[in-house]
């Protein structure tokens, strides 16, 4: 262990300086902000003291704890809308992808839908579903539908002709061709579509809450800014940053699981697992 440590020490030392520099840059940025506020260069009315934001975190999360229901609601809207919207998108793409004739007639609608900013339909949806969580979830669904739909369709259409010929020469049924060839071939693109959808889901939920709502982080931000409680508004924004970051990491992880064969280490591990399963007499995968 110590030997390895010795060999690696230049690299380890390098990593330590990198971390130190990151901390240094972060601390100086925050200090510069704090100092700029104290010297009156930044108006603390709009750009609150970092220290005020820090105490805001304490107040919103612990002392008053009033962010929790809003945070929970926004997350629920995002999750439900994402799952429903992307499932709908993938499902519809599969239906269209399996029927050549349908695919040809879908094109103009896809193009028009792509050109329309999805959020423009937001007020219509709110008028239809009301101010509650259903309209927000519906808007997130709308925002999350498109990328998985288009990517799934592209992935299915993009299957190599020779592979399709191979399946045909093996006299595979349409269902077999879909399950064993087209769907897994499309997985990398489907996964990329899901990542895009997830990235826009959070934004979609927020905008929907800005338009009209009675709860959620978007409403909270609106309330705090209208009462010039900027520190609390920043707490909400930073909460969203953290949420977005974790969603992003989660989607990356999902991609590594779904499309394991594009990741070298994971491919090796899955190979070992399949080998063990085979030895245990369960071999072969459906």
């Amino acid at each position: 262990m110590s030997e390895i440590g010795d060999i690696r020490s230049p690299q380890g030392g390098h990593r330590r300086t990198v971390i130190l520099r990151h901390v240094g840059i972060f601390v100086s940025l925050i200090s510069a902000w704090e100092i700029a506020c104290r010297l009156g260069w930044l108006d603390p009315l709009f750009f609150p003291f970092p220290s005020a934001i820090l105490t805001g975190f304490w107040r919103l999360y612990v002392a008053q704890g009033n962010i929790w229901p809003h945070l929970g609601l926004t997350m629920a809207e995002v999750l439900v809308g994402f799952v429903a919207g992307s499932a709908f998108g993938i499902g519809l793409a599969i239906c269209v992808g399996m029927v050549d004739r349908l695919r040809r007639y879908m094109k103009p609608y896809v193009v028009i839908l792509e050109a329309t900013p999805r959020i423009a339909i937001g007020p219509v949806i709110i008028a239809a579903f009301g101010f509650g969580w259903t309209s927000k979830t519906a808007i997130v669904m709308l925002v999350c539908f498109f990328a998985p739909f288009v990517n799934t369709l592209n992935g299915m259409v993009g299957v190599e002709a020779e592979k399709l010929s191979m399946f045909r020469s093996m006299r595979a049924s349409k269902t077999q061709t879909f399950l064993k060839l087209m769907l897994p071939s499309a997985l990398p693109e489907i996964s990329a579509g899901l990542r895009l959808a997830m990235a826009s889901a959070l934004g979609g939920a927020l905008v929907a809450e800005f338009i009209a709502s009675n709860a959620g982080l978007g409403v909270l931000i609106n309330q705090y800014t209208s009462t010039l409680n900027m520190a609390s508004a920043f707490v909400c924004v930073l909460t969203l940053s953290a949420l977005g970051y974790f969603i992003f990491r989660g989607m990356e992880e999902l991609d590594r699981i779904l499309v394991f064969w594009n990741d070298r280490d994971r491919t090796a591990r899955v190979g070992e697992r399949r080998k063990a399963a085979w030895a245990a007499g369960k071999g072969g995968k459906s």
Partner: protein
Amino acid sequence: MTAMAVETATAGDHDAATLPVIAAHDLRKTFAGGSVVAVEDADFQIRPGEFISLVGPSGCGKSTLLRMVAGLLERTSGSLTVHGQEVTGPHPTVAMMFQKPTLLDWRTAVENVLLPTEIAGRVTDADRRRAMDLLELTGLKDFAFSFPSQLSGGMQQRVALARLLQTGADILLLDEPFGALDEFTREHLNVELLRIVNEVRSTTLFVTHNISEAIYLADRVFVMTPRPGRIAGIVEVPFERPRPLSIQQGPEFNALVSRVRATFESAA
């Protein structure tokens, strides 16, 4: 391994040597409403266990001919029979291998080999053993649980070859299977192919644009010329199969190469 050879050879054994396994009469394929003639009036008969090379430049219709035999492409006119039956679509006694390995990236080598069995029905323990045996036959025993991305191009084609044999088909169609590989790997795989084909006693159609490769592998070489695509001549190869690579240095082999070339030139 002998058990396997018997298993794959049965389909051709009924009328052994008397009836052709594949027969074409005035076989014709045109594209674009008849303006492009891909295959013109092909006539040939292939006996059980024969190894036929189809050699010719790109666009001579050799792949089109192969795809018609595979039942992947409809003929325009003429007749084409496999085991005495008119070809109307993919047939269980015919299996095809492509220039690309066409492996499924999410399946290990042995899972890829098992694909034809899965498509045909349920996978039994016997099928699994057979898949492993075939990977051993193609020299990939230690890579059964590797994924395609972990294998070299040559190894991927070996998996594809094992998958081809797993179908149990007694007619094997190979469309430039080693064309994308380097010279050394290709020669090596050709030697292996002859050994394996001898072991499973299949009837084999091999498409290539390499004259030496065509002669080295085949009992008969169908020489094809383009525009319109047709079989300009058939060259018999007298050597016993399997054969060592060294026969390619002999004067007899060179004479055969010259004959194939002459067939091209007389047609041009």
